């Protein structure tokens, strides 16, 4: 198993698997950089063409699409910041403070994991209609501003990472609760915040069902909804749809690659504890 030949064979097999895994991305880039006429040929054209920017230009001439890129960015950034603040504050509190009802409340928080999303979707939609938030990014951001997963996950981290002596020292220095959270809790939680941040950003960026329900027919659709609409509008012009698809995933891939190692390690660690 550890023989040289075995190692090389394993590596070759892994690389072939990785190439197959990555092929759809390559294929996406090929289609986005060719004209639609070039795509519809037999045998198919397997190399990059020179039309990428023309295609992207065509996508962006659809005002809606540029707007949707902005909407997605706003929703993802604002939601992520709110989640990081509310989740870390709650996690810090649950991890390090004793107060009446703490255990019961944490139990309730865990119990909310089992509530399935479809059950709340229709009433949530009617709530949004009542609030006048249909077609507004608030409908995406506010309900997602704090979540049980993030609090649970970060509490596990905070319990081990924040030494009681530090909290005691802060208290002696006269720091109040919130001050202690800012100066002791947040700095220590930084690695956990990075993971939860990427996780949240990716999820908001990729979410489809809820934005489709609550934002459709408005000026505030997100990229995923705009993509589906682009597909409907450009049935014939496939390379334009693919250019839009490329635009929709590149920012996300950059965010992921920036923190990939860290992110993957945390996913794995979470599974082992779970």
């Amino acid at each position: 198993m550890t023989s040289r030949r075995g190692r090389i064979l394993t590596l070759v097999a892994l690389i072939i698997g990785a190439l197959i895994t990555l092929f759809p991305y390559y294929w996406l880039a090929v289609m986005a950089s060719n004209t639609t006429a070039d795509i519809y040929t037999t045998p198919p054209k397997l190399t990059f063409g020179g039309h990428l920017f023309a295609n992207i230009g065509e996508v962006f001439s659809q005002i809606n699409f540029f707007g949707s890129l902005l909407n997605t960015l706003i929703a993802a950034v604002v939601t992520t910041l709110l989640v990081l603040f509310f989740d870390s504050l709650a996690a810090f509190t649950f991890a390090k403070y004793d107060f009446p009802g703490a255990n019961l409340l944490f139990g309730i928080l865990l119990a909310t994991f089992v509530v399935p999303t479809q059950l709340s979707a229709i009433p949530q939609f009617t709530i949004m209609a009542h609030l006048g938030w249909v077609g507004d990014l608030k409908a995406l951001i506010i309900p997602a501003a704090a979540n049980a997963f993030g609090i649970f996950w970060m509490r596990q981290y905070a319990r081990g990472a924040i030494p009681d002596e530090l909290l005691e020292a802060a208290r002696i220095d006269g720091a109040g609760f919130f001050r202690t959270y800012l100066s002791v809790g947040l700095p220590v939680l930084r690695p956990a915040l990075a993971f939860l941040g990427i996780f949240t950003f990716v999820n908001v960026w990729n979410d489809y069902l809820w934005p489709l329900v609550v934002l459709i027919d408005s000026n505030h659709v997100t990229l995923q909804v705009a993509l589906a609409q682009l597909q409907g509008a450009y049935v014939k012009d496939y390379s334009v749809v693919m250019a839009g698809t490329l635009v929709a995933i590149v920012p996300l891939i950059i965010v992921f690659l920036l923190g990939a190692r860290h992110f993957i390690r945390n996913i794995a660690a979470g599974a082992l504890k779970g």
Partner: protein
Amino acid sequence: MTAILPAESAGTRRAPVRRTPAGHRKRWRYLPQYLAIAPFFVLFAIFGLYPVLYSFYLALQRWDGVGPMKFVGLQNFAYLLTDTTFWDSIGNTLIIFVMSTVPMTALALLVALGLNSSVRYKGALRVAYFLPNVTSIVAMSLVFGSIFSDEFGILNWVLRLVGIGDVDWLNDPWAIRGAISIMIIWRWTGYNAIIFLAGLQAMPTDVLEAARIDGAGPVQTFFRVTLPLLRPVLLFSVVMSAIGGLQIFSESQVLLGNRGGPGGAGMTMVLYFYNTAFADNDFGYGAAIAWGIFVVVVLFSILNWRLVARPERGQVQTKGAGR
């Protein structure tokens, strides 16, 4: 949220009785903590708990979302039980779940074993395998739509090259389910490989060493030592896949549309829910479908748990290998 309120309202109610500074301090002592955890509970009460309760009320109504509601009692649920589309959607979902989870788990194990050996470029390989999991389902469904396309699709071109010939990916019922399964396998193999890899790396090396000294070959070691020790992680993976698998929506909707393609072979439970509630604006029946999905998920989870978390057979096998 309800649990927080008593603490706060108790404070205001008793305020006139004890107005000493000490009492004041004591009463408000935990206020910062309650405020710190309040956002989640408030949001959950408004956007989680209340909607769930309300959706049960909705399931007893006929409502198009605009006009007046009409109370119909249990009619929606009664109809749900006889609704062949709903039963078909359960069937489709389970078929797609099995068609995707079995190959995915096997592939993920292979990748994990490979990554756990002493090969180079592990970091880069892990990232490559994991990437599909963070890429938008909508975007990649569009890409796969082109890959699966009948006449000009690259997959059929390859299949013709190797002599298998065209597969009608987006028209034939089984090919449709296969296409959706391939997309799920593509998306989740890397994720599960990373989970399995973590399990492999957490494995006590002395047990593997002992098996090796006792003369167990690599294959024997894998089936009698590694696999049983990996059981908790496999359990986690299968349960997570089941929960995710029952929620399949985007792949079907983007690839095949609201009706799940020809013959409705790609009509999953959540797609049927979406289609009824938000495309046909039948909110009352949509709510009933949501409860139907909930029941299926609960039943399936119990079944899953029983099948996978059976008595500790794994430990017996570990002992056998060590003997």
